[in-house]
């Protein structure tokens, strides 16, 4: 019984071994509708305001668009 419980516990350790998405599994994430900003125009407008207020811009996302090539 103790061995069975140990085995079950050891098996649960592997549960978190496969976190994240592999580069070749990003097809769905690469779709435009998966972008975090639902309205690019609105985002551009907010970026403009942010830049004029803070004298800095960017920091909203990262290059690559999900294909993992950059």
């Amino acid at each position, binding site marked *: 019984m103790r061995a069975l419980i140990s*085995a079950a516990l*050891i098996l649960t350790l592997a549960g978190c071994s496969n976190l994240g998405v592999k*580069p070749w*599994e990003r097809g769905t994430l690469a*779709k435009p509708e998966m972008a975090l900003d639902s309205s690019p125009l609105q985002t551009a407008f907010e970026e403009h305001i942010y830049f004029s207020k803070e004298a800095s811009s960017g920091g909203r996302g990262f290059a690559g*668009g999900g294909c*993992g090539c950059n």
Partner: protein
Amino acid sequence: MRRILGLILLLVSSAAHSADLDLSPYKGKVVYVDLWAAWCPPCRASFPWMEALHTDLRDQGLVVLAVNTADDPADAARFLAKAQPSFTIITDPEGDIAESLGATGMPYSVIFDRNGERVSSHVGFQLKNAPALRRSIKALLSSTEQTN
């Protein structure tokens, strides 16, 4: 206890199993393997370059092998109908080949020499880096003579 450990090992090894790329049909050739998907813009951008590579260097013993990796078959077919590549396309629906090659991004290319040894790998595709990559492939082709 030993039997349970054996069962755990079996489960782990079957989960980690991945199909290797079979390069035996290309013995004696330099093989350029490219992992691509239709959703990936740089992958699509690399196709004209790979087509030129294939056309110019196949007589010197280069094989271009484009592996469609874990892609929507309809998207891939639509793209291929437009691109009309003359090099070999194979499919890797579960990403097993990508896993075995250790792909860290898309597109991912690996160059194998005439002995089937892995020489180098590249992540991504940028036109500015393409001439250097082509030069390295040409150098590899000329450094070893074609045996068959």
